[in-house]
């Protein structure tokens, strides 16, 4: 673990200001990604700025009834927040399906968005990885790639975005508030994470900015939500495939549907075509399977992960089925 300078930020403006002109500086909030990777010599900040003293740790209801989540709200506090449980059960389910109690207690909302991939070649400083060391190649492409992406990959990178929380955010829809040298701006969650393409080292749309808040889109009404996470262990493991689904039902017809995938894609993966295919359909297996086929139409397997495509299909169908059941219960 290399050495670094350390500073504590006491305001958002000064935190952002302090980072300017120092590309090797990193913010630390929960620390669960940063310190893990610094110990592996994968992240090598020369300076770490502690932002935990910033006043970004509340969940507030805006006048338009949306929920605005401060970037420093911990995963645990968010998952158990009464307003989140009431409006966005999918978010709560997804967070509680991820990591461990301890990590959820440390990890923050903003930090979760900044979570790095678990690709073992990314995490091994001696391996070739275009994300870690641009131009060095990708050892995963023809290596042990069981855990890797079947959606959104490129010949440069097939690393999975590991977050569960972000799958829920993708399905729910959210707006991020970023604070940069030129003040605040807002960006849609869907536009925040980038596909690897030829620049896998560019993971998100931050431009010397700090994430200060995540504002959730209004919930569907009546709402059924289900997060189905499939993995080898029963807990404390990243997804092989996960699906977050939300439905509103009018009698047996689907009003609006939302669907996003985790564990199979290079970024939190929203399935808009599949969503559109469900609108107005009867909430039955045929519709769910057709939606799953659409969602995975572009999936491309690697040498060790072909199983992820049928597995993701099953996760989608089960998540939609369970969401529909809950919507019926909610309606009843």
């Amino acid at each position, binding site marked *: *673990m*290399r*050495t*670094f*300078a*350390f*500073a*504590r*930020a*006491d305001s958002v403006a*000064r935190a952002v*200001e*302090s980072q300017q002109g120092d590309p090797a500086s990193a913010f*630390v909030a*929960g*620390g*669960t990604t940063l*310190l*893990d990777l*610094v*110990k*592996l010599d994968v992240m090598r900040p*020369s300076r*770490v700025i*502690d932002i*935990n003293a910033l006043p970004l740790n509340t969940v507030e209801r805006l006048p338009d009834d949306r929920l605005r989540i401060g970037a420093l709200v911990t995963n*645990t506090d968010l998952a*158990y927040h009464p307003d989140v449980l009431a409006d966005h059960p999918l978010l709560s389910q997804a967070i*509680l399906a991820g*990591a*461990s*109690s*301890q*990590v959820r*207690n*440390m990890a923050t909302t903003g930090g979760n968005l900044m979570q790095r991939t678990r690709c073992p070649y990314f995490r091994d400083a001696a391996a070739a990885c275009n994300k870690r060391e641009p131009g060095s190649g990708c050892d995963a492409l023809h290596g042990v790639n069981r855990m890797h992406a079947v959606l959104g990959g490129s010949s440069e990178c097939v690393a999975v975005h590991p977050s569960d929380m972000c799958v829920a955010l993708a399905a729910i829809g959210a707006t991020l508030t970023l604070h940069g040298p030129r003040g605040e701006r807002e960006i849609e969650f869907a536009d925040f994470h980038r596909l690897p393409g030829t620049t896998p080292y560019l993971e998100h749309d931050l431009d010397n900015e700090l994430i200060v808040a995540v504002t959730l889109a209004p919930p569907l009404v009546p709402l059924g939500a289900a997060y189905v996470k499939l993995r080898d*262990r*029963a*807990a*404390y493991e990243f997804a092989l495939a996960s699906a977050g689904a939300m439905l509103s039902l009018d009698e047996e017809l689907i009003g609006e549907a939302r669907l996003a995938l985790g564990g199979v894609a290079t970024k939190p993966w929203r399935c808009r075509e599949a969503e559109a295919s469900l609108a107005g359909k009867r909430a039955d297996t045929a519709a769910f399977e057709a939606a799953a086929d659409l969602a995975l139409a572009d999936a491309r397997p690697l040498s060790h992960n072909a199983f992820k495509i049928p597995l993701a299909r099953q996760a989608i169908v089960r998540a939609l089925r369970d969401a529909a059941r809950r919507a019926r219960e909610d309606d009843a």
Partner: protein
Amino acid sequence: MMETTEHSPEAAVSVHLTLNGVPVTAEVSPNAILLDVLREQLGLTGTKKGCDHGQCGACTVHVEGRAMNACLRLAVMCEGQAITTIEGLAEGGRLHPVQQAFLDHDAFQCGYCSPGQIMSAVALLEDRRVPGDVTTVREAMSGNLCRCGAYQNILAAIQDARLRRHGQEGGDDA
């Protein structure tokens, strides 16, 4: 001001903690990890290092009452915080009820993961947001690996401590 809290890589930083109820000041380097400072510098070796990457839970401590992996936290991030380790649980020479339950249920073998298991269990029992059913408890404890596999007895110890605690609370209410 930022300037007043900027520390160079080689400089020692003073960190003020309330450690097991006692104010402590430690001089640490900016990259020192809380776990290593507790163990190697402050001599509190009850908190264990198993993986050093937040994967095993042997280093679980309470920071401001919440269970956290001490291996994934800079010591300097803990300025002004209250930290409880396994050494701070027993009071007046009496085991904490969760420690006693672990002893009664043989909820350990080699004992190396036990401090972390106990710290997680205590935090879990104190967090009223987390339901007390067996499925939830198993998930909530899954961040603490036990390679000896004493999970059955650990679960029994936790649920026993929960019952006793509620019994007591019921008594207090009455």
